[in-house]
């Protein structure tokens, strides 16, 4: 569609849509927004591999697909492997992969399919250096099977297998830092992103497209259903996750760290602001909140140091 000039000037995101309305995500779903941005960035010459997760359903049942791109549904733990195979075949068949005009091969997997069951295939993909982009949309639990914890679920969160009760909640482990595991592979490009900051996300997607080799983006994608949050608060919650430094935005590029916070000078807001909009944290006591706050700030200091030393 031709975009009028006056509108074009004001656009901060690509105008074209390649993710159709009529998909079956819940209202306020962060993941579906994320997928929409991915396709905005890459267009229809994209092959998306989706393992078992909410996005399997979001894309729609046979014979439908909400994606204006080729979509291969794959087994839960295989995203890294299947995109490796697709990339290899494209090369064997003589196609250009990645780069400005190449075919984009995208793995789009949840935190469970990435941080847990798919970690091995992810590691293999990263280590072998395939020209593809792996995006982990992080909704911090297994939503597709009904809100069970993943290793990316934060301390203090209620899930159906770490329920809160009279005694206490069960989730006592801090969120796994998948991105650190990814960076340990010393790949050319890794970044965190958030659906609350689409310009930043798209910029990172474009960067991942240009840089040869494997790229990884961990996208923060709130899930109102699983987080017990109002459906109109998705963006606000995602923004607070960044502002509280609970989920800081940063890039790792060829050994260098760069923090991309919207207001770099500002001190992080108290973690309560992020927690209070979500029913999943209602079992936390004051002490629990302190424990989480301490962890968040420690991790934040750690990241700042990394950016200082390897900036």
């Amino acid at each position, binding site marked *: 569609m031709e975009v009028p000039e006056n509108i074009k000037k004001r656009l901060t995101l690509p105008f074209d849509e390649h993710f159709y309305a009529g998909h079956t995500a819940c209202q306020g779903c962060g993941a579906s927004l994320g997928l929409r941005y991915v396709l905005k960035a890459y267009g*229809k*010459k994209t*092959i998306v*591999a989706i393992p078992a997760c909410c996005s*399997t*359903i979001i*894309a*729609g*049942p*046979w*014979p*439908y*697909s909400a*994606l*204006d*791109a*080729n*979509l*291969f*549904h*794959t*087994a839960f*733990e*295989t995203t*890294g*492997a*299947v*995109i*490796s*195979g*697709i*990339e*290899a*075949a*494209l*090369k*064997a*068949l003589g*196609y250009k992969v990645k780069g400005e005009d190449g*075919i984009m091969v995208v793995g789009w997997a949840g935190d469970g399919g990435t941080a847990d069951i798919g970690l*091995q*295939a992810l*590691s*293999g993909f990263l*280590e*072998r250096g395939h020209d593809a982009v792996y995006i982990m949309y992080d909704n911090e639990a297994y939503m597709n099977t009904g809100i069970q914890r993943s290793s990316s679920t934060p301390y203090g969160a209620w899930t159906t297998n770490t329920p809160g009760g009279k005694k206490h909640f069960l989730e006592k482990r801090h969120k796994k830092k998948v991105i650190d595991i990814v960076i340990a592979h010393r790949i050319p490009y890794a970044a965190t992103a958030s659906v609350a900051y689409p310009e930043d996300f798209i910029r990172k997607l474009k960067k991942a497209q240009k840089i040869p080799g494997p790229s990884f983006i961990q996208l923060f994608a709130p899930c109102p259903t699983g987080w017990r949050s109002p459906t109109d608060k998705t963006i606000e919650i995602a923004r607070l996750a960044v502002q509280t430094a609970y989920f800081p935005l940063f890039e790792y590029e060829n050994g260098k760290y760069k923090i991309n916070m919207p207001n770099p000078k500002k001190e992080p807001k108290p973690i309560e602001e992020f927690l209070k909009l979500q029913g999943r944290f209602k079992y936390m006591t004051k002490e629990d909140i302190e424990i989480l706050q301490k962890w968040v700030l420690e991790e934040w200091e750690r990241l700042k140091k990394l950016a200082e030393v390897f900036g």
Partner: protein
Amino acid sequence: MEYKPIRKVVSGNYAAAYAALHARVQVVAAYPITPQTSIIEKIAEFIANGLADIQYIPVESEHSAMAACIGASATGARVFTATSAQGLALMHEMLHWASGARLPIVMVNVNRAMAPPWSVWDDQTDSLAQRDTGWMQFYAENNQEVYDGVLMAYKIAENVNLPAMIIESAFILSHTYDVVEMIPQELVDEFLPPRKPLYSLANFDEPFAVGGLATPNDYYEFRYKIAKAMEEAKKVIKEVGKEFGERFGRDYSEMIEKAYIDDADFVFMGMGSLMGTVKEAVDLLRKEGYKVGYAKVRWFRPFPKEELMEIAESVKGIAVLDRNFSFGQEGILFNEAKGSLYNTSARPIMKDYIVGLGGRDFTVKDVKAIAEDMKKIIESGKLDREIEWYHLKR
């Protein structure tokens, strides 16, 4: 071009690797496991020496090997992998994915016993446990059949859009050298033209999705189509086997290779390398006046039910040799063969001999002893027991 075979002395594994090379595979993803490893090593060597232009993915597990093959095949490439036992078991989930996505992947599985206890020797339970994955299965008797099998498998698989497994036995074939007649590349190319995929992820004209959710309203029909393709495969297998015979002199038009059936009192039925031993024994037994024959099941999936029914009509007994076992029931080939004959009037006496598990030697002497046992059964018309664990140390 006139067909003049190139004779090479190679192991079963090298025969497999050469066949993959000659089939012009484009992507190989594989993970090492004894006794399969030398297949993928050889392919790596071909690439290193510039004999082939193959994208080689040294994956981190067999599960990923199959997943990568699936991704590559869905993109339109001709792909190959090989594995064995624990590796095949680890692939199990993805085997369903390959057939469900209708991908003509060809894999060589080296039959090896499942652990525990650890064993690296021959046993068919690993591949037979994959019976219901929608993969075609060809059991090779010797290194030549490994080579021929891989080449035919691509043609058959790409015709019916189902994956195929070529199965060879651990060490007995995988590491044993024998003369293999290879086919000059140009003639392989004539027999096996480049793949024309059913669909390709690299085609962006009309965006599409593969493998998503199907409701109860649709799933059933997807299964039916695979069932139909398997049925269709029987015809294609015979045609391709016949064409192979016409072009290269080795006929594979029968899904069950048989000899001495017409006047035999009973036949030995089995699969894979042990049937080489049986052939030799049967020739000797014939000279000694035993009226025996053999029936080697080449293709276990699709199962050659009709051919088996024909054999059953002319013999009084069938001694099934199972180098495998399904716990709680019986040998797997025995089970399949018996089941296939239920609705016919031809019901020869059948006995299941469990032999050679975990690489236990199975020799001509053993075949003779079994012939002796079968002869008694046929003469008395009484089956002493249905299943015999033949080598059991009592």
